[in-house]
């Protein structure tokens, strides 16, 4: 890298950082109460100093403000989110994708264990799994047992299910649950449905076949 390109890179990085900081400041200014704004700023500093993205924290703070939560409640909610984000960061390493970490934190909040996050990561190490984590969270929040939901999502990932297919699965399970089906039964039925549309899983015979 030449001096000129290094300088350009640094300038560009500074511009991005400045734009990000400015966007954050603009959102902070939405918090009218001085004490709450100071508490949120401190929590943001704590999170970003640990390498976590600021956006989910800012959003959680604004949610608390909209819901008229006290400064103490907002601070506690942000601290709890930081704990989950750090756990998600460790489980989903080396990813630092904002959506993925936030989705991982959501999954942990509904009771999905860190081990399941690691399994999902191992199944798709080179790409974002935020949709998969989101669908897993949705299924558990709708009442599907964690183990069954994790297994279903892992199976579908292994078979190459797309994000559209996964989100459609979540929507269909919701419809079935609303119609009176038990969540686990609904997932079993809908999961089979999606699996039937996917190509067969790789086996020894069709993975290493060489044309003769």
């Amino acid at each position, binding site marked *: 890298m030449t001096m000129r390109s290094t300088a350009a890179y640094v300038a560009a990085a500074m511009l991005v950082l400045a734009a990000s900081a400015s966007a954050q400041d603009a959102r902070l200014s939405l918090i009218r109460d001085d004490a709450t704004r100071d508490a949120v700023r401190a929590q943001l500093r704590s999170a970003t100093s640990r390498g976590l993205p600021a956006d989910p924290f800012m*959003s959680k703070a604004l*949610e608390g403000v*909209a*819901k008229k939560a006290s400064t103490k409640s907002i601070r506690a*909610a942000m601290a709890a989110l930081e704990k989950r984000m750090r756990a998600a960061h460790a489980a989903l390493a080396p990813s630092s994708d904002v959506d993925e970490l936030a989705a991982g934190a*959501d999954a942990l*909040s509904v009771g999905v264990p860190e081990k399941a996050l690691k399994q999902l990561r191992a199944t798709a190490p080179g790409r974002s799994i935020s949709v998969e984590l*989101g669908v897993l969270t949705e299924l558990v929040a709708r009442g599907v047992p964690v183990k069954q939901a994790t297994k279903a999502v892992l199976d579908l990932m292994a078979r190459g299910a797309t994000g559209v297919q996964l989100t459609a699965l979540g929507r269909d399970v919701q419809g079935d649950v609303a119609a009176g089906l038990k969540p686990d039964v609904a997932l079993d039925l809908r999961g089979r449905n999606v699996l039937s549309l996917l190509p067969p899983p790789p086996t020894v015979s069709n993975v290493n076949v060489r044309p003769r």
Partner: protein
Amino acid sequence: MSPRVIAWALLAAAWRAVGAQSPQDVQLDAGYARVQQRARDERGAGILGVTWRVSDLRVSSLLSAALTNTGDSLAAGQILGAIAMRPTSARWAVLEAGAGLNIFGITNSGRGGNFSGYLRPRVSFGDGGAWVGVSDGSTVRDGNPSHGTTVEAGGWYRLGDVTATASFSRLRTDDWPLLEAAGIYLSRPALMADMDDATVGLHYARGRFTADLANSWREGRRASPVSQEALLWSASWAFTDRVALALSGGRMLADPVRGTPDASLTMAVLRFTWRPKESEADVPGVASYARVAPQAGGAMLLLAIVAPSSVAVDVAGDFSNWEPTPLVRTPNGWEFQTFLKPGRHRVAVRYDGGPWRAPGNLARMKDEFDGEYGLIIVP
């Protein structure tokens, strides 16, 4: 038929309309007050009150009981019932009625009791509204009966966090002991005293802080020449969703309708509230549906809500930086649409400024603020 009879009849009829499924809360007040009546020593009073509120989309009702423990109290026991009804055909109109029973333990204005009732229809338009009202009360003090009637008219207007009110009322009463204790004497023999009251008030609410300020002017008419003024203030701060401290002070003018004397007071009350966590399923008649329609580069979120008795429905979420956005009223209910980028989105709706809830068909997530939001995943 007097307002008291009408108020009781309405209370009895509407009470049944509030079903067991309606959200309700219970509030316990415990506090201390310093009360000084005209030309009397200042007295201390311990206060214990219980209030039970139950709300439907069309009917809100309140039942309150309070005990004041002092050797020389304003009221030793008080029971109050009030109800507000909103007809579905005219959402801008509310009929409010209430009835109250005071049992005095006072020595300086006599022992006895008071029974009163009121009717107050009100209409709202945009950020403002107006009301007219009539109230009527009978008092028995040391075996002597008296009577008071008030007709009133008023209006309010909300500007941001502040709501201003102004009202005018005319009072007619023959409660001579109460009036004389308040320094109001007749200039010539008369059967009744007539007085005009004008009151302006300001109400401020932001976050967990609320404050009220009201100033009243009383001018006598005909045989009761009097000119009085009273300023009453109150403020409350909610430490948590359940615990709040309320302070109030100032002077209240004699109220012959409810039998309460002219007095200056300073009061501090610790308020505990128990309120069940609400979800949309707890609100009868409300149904919402969130449709996420895939589009190029994301999805369109369409919210369709049926809430026949609501006058305002808001949505908020990550997409709006949690800034409440009003839904648009349609012939079938309420609608909202916005474009969502791929990723995870959190959405909540509220009815008439109430608690934020997850739209009906979305996965419900706890929000760490004793509420919930709906989760949307856009592939």
